[in-house]
């Protein structure tokens, strides 16, 4: 282990430069972010992830955001364990009817101002599960959604681009 720790000391950080904030995401957010919320948030956002019935593919890529290469926390973004500590709900899955109530309750437990980011093609409109008797068909069928990050699943870079756009929007001066 000493070898491993020593190597970590001398080799320099593995973390990669961030992607630019996603243009499409910035445009989608521009209409929804107001000055009041900007003042309150500064540049740090707490994220509560909610799996509303995904296939777990999106979760794998959201996990990757925490690895050393993407290192989400350097941007002031971090995952928290309770919706009560969260500013942002990061929701995946086509919203199964069996998860609908849990998602609504999680939203209600999140203090305002709060944001909902729908991650993945399923969360956008049900994706390949659209039309199923067991799915609501996308997060916006249940909650007001502020930002969609498409992909099946979105890559960590795409997730970062979307989340950075969110940080940019909420921390920009003026409206």
């Amino acid at each position, binding site marked *: 282990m000493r070898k491993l720790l020593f190597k970590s000391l001398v080799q320099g950080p593995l973390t990669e430069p961030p992607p630019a904030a996603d243009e499409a995401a910035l445009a989608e957010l521009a209409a929804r972010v107001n000055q009041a919320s900007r003042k309150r948030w500064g540049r740090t956002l707490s994220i509560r992830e909610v799996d509303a019935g995904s296939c777990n593919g999106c979760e794998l*890529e959201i996990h*990757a955001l925490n690895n050393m290469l993407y290192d989400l926390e350097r941007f002031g973004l971090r995952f928290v364990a309770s919706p009560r500590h969260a500013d942002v709900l990061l929701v995946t899955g086509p919203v199964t009817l069996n998860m609908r109530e849990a998602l609504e309750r999680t939203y209600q437990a999140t203090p305002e101002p709060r944001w909902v980011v729908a991650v993945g093609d399923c969360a956008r409109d049900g994706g390949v*599960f659209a039309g199923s008797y*067991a799915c609501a068909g996308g997060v916006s069928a249940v909650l007001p959604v502020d930002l969609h990050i498409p992909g099946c699943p979105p890559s960590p870079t795409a997730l970062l681009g979307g989340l950075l756009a969110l940080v940019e929007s909420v921390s920009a001066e003026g409206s």
Partner: protein
Amino acid sequence: MASLNDLIVSNAAVERHRPWPRAVVSRKSWQQAADRLHSGEWSLLGLWGEPDWAHMAVTEPETHACAVLSVACEASRFPSIGALHAPAIRLERAMRDLVGLEPEGLADARPWLDHGKWERHPLGPARHSPAALRAYSFLAAEGESLHQIPVGPVHAGIIEPGHFRFTANGETVVRLEERLGYAHKGTESLMAGASIGRAAVLAGRVSGDSTVAFALAFSLAAEAALGVEVPPRAVWLRALLAELERLANHFGDIGAVCNDAAFAIMHAHCALLREQVLRTAETCFGHRLLMDRVIPGGIQRDITAESARALLALVANLRKRFPELVEVYDNTPSLKDRTVGTGILSPALAQRFAAGGFIGRASGRNFDARRTPGYAPYDRLQFEIPVVRAGDVNARVWIRISEVGQSLALIEQILDQLPSGSILAGAIAERSPHGREGVALVEGFRGDVLAWVRIAAGGSVERCHLRDPSWFQWPLLEAAIEGNIVADFPLCNKSFNCSYSGHDL
């Protein structure tokens, strides 16, 4: 006693069911099959229903024979297997919910996937309005000073939804009961009537971490039904995809188990190795998780000479980096203190539930679908199946560590012997005057995935059933946690790493 083959021979085997036989059996023979499962002579591979039929896939370890048995359900009833053989209970509860079949003698009549939110019996002859909402009654645990801890379906981490009901005496868990079904998406209903191509896409999203395994299982079953010959190059590249998926998941799991023992450095470095696998997958096949790369008839994309070099460079790098991490794992007493002796699953239970993957192999069950029943190209490849009997968290970590080495060697062999030629068979869904059926068992990273499909005369999917390995692993987690402290649950859970979505369908 008659062997599985004798039973098939003495009953009318169904035509056009491949590669294993399917036999329609009497209620008496069906009940005898339950006896065989109960006595351990046979292992249950799957149990599913149609409006007038109950089907069961079984294997006989002694002869390696596999077969599907079907019993007609008069008035929607069939003799319960779960009444004698506990691993069938949840599958039968799901059959009640989805198809409306009544397993006679099933002791646990609580709904399972049906939470009262959708029309009942979506796969049955007719749908019915949702059941009246009733509180789910958890099993009792009685005694002084017991308290309950409800957890989920929304968890503290970035994980899938499910509910755990712990009953604890102080710090010690005396009973864990799982309640699942939150991720139920109605996948099998969406597959009914779908084209084979769309059904393969859906199969690849039953459990995202096992997308290659599910797409492969579905494709093999459909190809068996249709008699499609997959070009050798595609057969070999499919194995390459499967081993990459196994590697990525094992690295993720080994790190995550250590992380749940608050040992972050292993997690950080394993995540890095996982990321290297995913990036190479993206470079060579165009998708980090390899979704939709296995398609019916072959694979979606061939590799170039450059890709082959990138894959070999990946293997070389992993061979260099991973042993350092294994050494850290093995030489850190504070970490081993958490994993050794924690969450022990007895070999007897692993055997009875026919637990697949690292869970079974860490508890002495020597089973790997790549070897039995086996499928190409693994019959031409050299690999070992690591098995230990300790059954604790540490054993499940070590099986994964050993399997990483096997997968690296397999990738090298595949690249070395890769046949040339095309990667896709010609037209696969030709019309036929008859319906045709196929079945396949594939070894995913988590264990054996069963796929059964009936293709209608027109070439679309009439009915498909996909059984995730988690169906037989989730119940064992309840057994493994008993007597452990609540704080060790995340560690035990991660060492099992069952799929919620794969189970809930």
